[in-house]
């Protein structure tokens, strides 16, 4: 039988060559196109198959650890380079916005409907309840918060929806991005607890919005409040519902895995939700910009805002209903 030393000597040249090629690959910078060395892909593939064979032999013959280890490292990095799957690029992002995201939303229609109901039912119930009994708002938030909300949406405010004059549009833009994406990600991640977390966060946020709306309407501030929220909610509420829908999908994969194991179903549901998460993050960026720079502008008459809101809602619904149908 071949001794480890003979084995090593016989194939050392191949191994050294493969290691050098892999190192060159790892050092390549694709964006430096011109002075990148030409790819030796065929050679790498041939050497990689050889190394796989040698590894199998070395393991079967219980060769010393340093040989097996060297072959393992070699094959691992070659495997990573050969089978690497790049899925994000400018072209992909364009394709996602144009077709994949709306198509994924349509494909998840059931979950979207369920998530929308989970969000909207508490909204409506709480809005009616708090409108009838305004004191109920105090069981949700404390009195200081209530009075700050009242001043945020009072008719005299320059900018609607914020506490102090000193805060600028830009500052609120940064705040909305962080806060809203945090809420959306909570709605998604809660799905991991058999969907209960998603249901809770959707219902909680819906209830809060409803209570606030009901209270402010009762106080006679309806026009400032609704003219503030209608436009950006086209993007914001939709995005949060979509994040919740992805969470419900994840939750269902655990409760009803079908013909797969729970773990397979979970991995597949999570992989399918990624496209929804990208879209949700994009929509929340738009929502934050609209909320900070358009919705809060106190000098715009409500009529203009209702007009823009109608346009935005139509656009969002048309986007999810029609966009990318041909690619389906």
């Amino acid at each position, binding site marked *: 039988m071949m*001794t*480890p*030393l*003979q*084995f090593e000597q016989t194939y050392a040249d191949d191994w050294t060559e493969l290691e050098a090629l892999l190192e060159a690959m*790892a050092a390549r910078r694709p964006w430096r196109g011109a002075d990148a060395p030409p790819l030796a892909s065929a050679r790498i593939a041939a050497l*990689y*198959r050889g190394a*796989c064979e040698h*590894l*199998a032999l070395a393991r079967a*013959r*219980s*060769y*010393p*650890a*340093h*040989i097996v*280890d*060297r072959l*393992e*490292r070699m*094959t*691992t990095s070659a*495997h*990573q380079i050969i*089978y*690497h*799957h790049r*899925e*994000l690029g400018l072209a992909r992002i364009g394709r996602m916005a144009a077709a994949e995201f709306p198509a994924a939303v349509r494909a998840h229609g059931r979950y979207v409907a369920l998530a929308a109901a989970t969000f909207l039912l508490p909204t409506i119930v709480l809005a009616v309840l708090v409108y009838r009994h305004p004191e109920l708002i105090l069981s949700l938030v404390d009195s200081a918060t209530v009075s700050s909300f009242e001043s945020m949406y009072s008719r005299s405010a320059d900018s609607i929806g914020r506490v102090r004059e000193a805060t*600028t*549009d*830009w*500052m*609120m*833009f*940064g*705040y909305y*991005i*962080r806060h809203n*994406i945090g809420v959306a*990600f*909570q709605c*998604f*991640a*809660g799905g*991991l*607890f058999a969907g209960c977390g998603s249901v809770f966060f959707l219902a909680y946020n819906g209830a809060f919005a409803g209570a606030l709306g009901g209270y402010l309407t009762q106080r006679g501030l309806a026009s400032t409040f609704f003219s503030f929220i209608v436009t950006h909610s086209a993007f914001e509420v939709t995005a949060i519902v979509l994040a919740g829908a992805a969470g419900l999908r*994840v939750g269902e994969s655990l409760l009803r895995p079908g013909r797969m194991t729970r773990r397979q179903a*979970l*991995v597949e*549901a*999570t*992989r399918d*939700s*990624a*496209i929804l*998460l*990208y879209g949700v993050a994009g929509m929340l960026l738009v929502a934050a910009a609209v909320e900070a720079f358009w919705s809060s502008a106190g000098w715009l008459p409500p009529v203009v805002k209702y007009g823009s809101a109608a346009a935005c809602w139509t656009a969002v619904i048309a986007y999810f209903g029609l966009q990318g149908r041909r690619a389906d």
Partner: protein
Amino acid sequence: MIGSPTRSSSTPEGPPGATDVLDTVVAAETPEGILLELRPAGVTPRLYAFLLDWMVRLVLMYAAWMVAAVLGGIGIAFGLIVLFALEWLYPVVFELTPSGATPGKRTFGLKVVMDNGLPVTAAASVARNVLRVADFLPFVYGFAVVSVLLRRDCKRLGDVAAGTIVVYDRRAVSPPVAEGVEPRVPSMRLSPGAQAAVVALAARAPRLSGERVDELAALAAPVSGDAGNSGPDVTRRVLGVAQWLVGRR
């Protein structure tokens, strides 16, 4: 087979026996039919990596607020956006680099890969990092710690759902040193496993104290016909057998 924990050197079926090695190695099969060994990282190195990343982020955040303080309103927006980016994008961006690891993970020799040993995909990286929200519950990564401690492949919830695994990056194993050791014919037939054990002892010898090598060599003494004896001479003969097994004559 992919991603399922295996015991090395054991038959696929059958109860675990004395020859089973207690190990956390996870095997991933490649299309070429070989098994890549992934070594999952446990709570402690991941905690260190997390704390280091946290400090890196804290420093970056401090720098961002210094800039923000100068710029006023727009500066605060900038600061908040940086805060957002550090919270959500920092791990994703670093995991998608060729190293597959945040600076903290890289420092402690860890990286994130898919269950099949491939580099982590964008979708998986986003998913595992967004699901931190769930791992963080009920407080300071409580579920993550419980999950990592209970699972053989040391995954937190986000890793389970995204199909990723945090593994040790491989470091080279040193070959057995040959200087000053006469190759020596073993005095008995050795199974491949026993041969590998003797050679592995020779490879580890330089990193152990002399006394410890003597102790370990005494266990392997039968291979050089010194059963029951110990001491530096026995050790030298056992290491000589290792040299012979490697192929020196």
